[in-house]
């Protein structure tokens, strides 16, 4: 299990690097999908297959499909690749890379100084355990998230509604006048 954990972690890091450095947007999204699937594998290796399956279903299987869908519709082509390449010139990424390198050093130092004895245990969490935890002690949080999602749903349906008869007739009048 430990080998699986480190391997999929490595794949996740490399794939995420691919997302940032790739100039073709659809290929970058493909890397992001690979990265999400390898994170799901990390969950599997840590003994949380339920979270891993949900990661694949929700992130890789639904959200990323929408991303790919939209990028496909934009039909960016060679222009987009050229623009991406211009953004990747050393002058642009040098500053952010230096700053994040500092953060990386801090992260590694923290991990180094912390307790090193933590190992992956083979304990597997079942869907039932996750469910009773979510709807037991964390019920309030779940309900709040549900309300937030409902609000988002209402907003989306409001934004995406078809124009009413008044609005559409306005537009038609405008067009018909020669």
């Amino acid at each position: 299990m430990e080998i699986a954990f480190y391997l999929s972690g490595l794949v996740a890091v490399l794939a995420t690097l691919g997302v940032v450095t790739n100039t073709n947007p659809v290929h970058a999204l493909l890397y992001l999908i690979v990265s999400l699937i390898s994170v799901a594998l990390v969950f599997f290796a840590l003994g949380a297959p339920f979270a891993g399956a949900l990661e694949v279903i929700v992130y890789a299987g639904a959200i990323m499909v929408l991303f790919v869908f939209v990028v496909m519709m934009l039909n960016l082509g060679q222009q987009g690749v050229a623009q991406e390449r211009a953004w990747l010139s050393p002058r642009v990424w040098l500053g952010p890379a230096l700053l994040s390198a500092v953060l990386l050093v801090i992260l590694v130092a923290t991990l180094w100084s912390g307790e090193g004895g933590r190992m992956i245990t083979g304990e597997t969490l079942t869907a039932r355990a996750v469910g009773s935890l979510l709807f037991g002690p964390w019920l309030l949080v779940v309900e709040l998230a549900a309300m937030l999602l409902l609000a988002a749903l209402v907003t989306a349906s409001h934004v995406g509604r078809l124009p009413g008869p008044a609005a559409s007739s306005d537009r038609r009048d405008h067009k018909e006048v020669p």
Partner: protein
Amino acid sequence: MNALPEPLVASLIAMLQAGVILLGVLLLGAVLTLVERRLLGLWQDRHGPNRVGPFGALQWVADMIKIFFKEDWIPPFADRTLFVLAPAIAMASLLLSFMIIPLTPSWGVANLHIGLLFFLAMAGINVYSVLFGGWSSGNKYALLGAMRAAAQTLSYEVFIGLSLMGVVAMAGTFNMREIVAAQEDLWFVVPQFLGFMTFLVAGIAVTHRPPFDQPEAEQELADGYHVEYSSMKFGMFFLGEYVGMVLISALIVTLFFGGWQGPWLPPFVWFALKTGAFLVLFMLLRASLPRPRYDQVMRFGWMFCLPLTLINLLVTGALILLADPL
């Protein structure tokens, strides 16, 4: 046999089972292409392919040889990486889903306790085959087909999961073997009839079989997302459709019709008979129903099937709580 240690023998047997199931599914998919054409011929009062071998029984072999030796053409305007990747995703994600299906009490590849979720995850990954295939072809019709496929599959995947949650709630587990065991007294098709109906519809839509084959509608889109594919790359999409059909049939049998359970006959025969019945139903649907318009498909999914599954889930939950208060 005594020379080999016990765990090694067990894992070898498991690997052998996995290999046999994999080969069996692939062969079944290939043979089904012939069975479907013969049955369509029967129902439409014509012959169908009947020249190669006795009653045309070797037609699929001839088709396979032909498809393997055709020129494997990649369009110069295509995105090569994704173009090659797409059929592989189509085939792999469907074949991997067979992992969770228990054929008999002793046969089956994996006994995951998140079994059903694994199928949903693989169905989610399967969408990319159509999306990437359509986009990388660099063809307008292919892109239109991919667009339709993505919207259709996403919409129907919403309630393909919801329609199964009634079964999960009644069995109390995602594990396929335990779900089959929970149907010892009563098949879930009786208490979960609405769930069964919506899963059947969604299953056809997710595998984009006719009448839900809008992504590849020949009369409108030439051939949709796989119009630029040739040779075995097309073959993988084509075979993938049949493998998907076998998968959905096997899932319906496992989840709603008691899996291998049945009197007198051995378990595998029961499983095969039930799955075969659903395969024939899939073909009969193709032979008899016209293709609805694309917006009608989407409307039917969101306006009719989704509320139905939600009501089904609510009622199931209420009844379970009534029968057995916490």
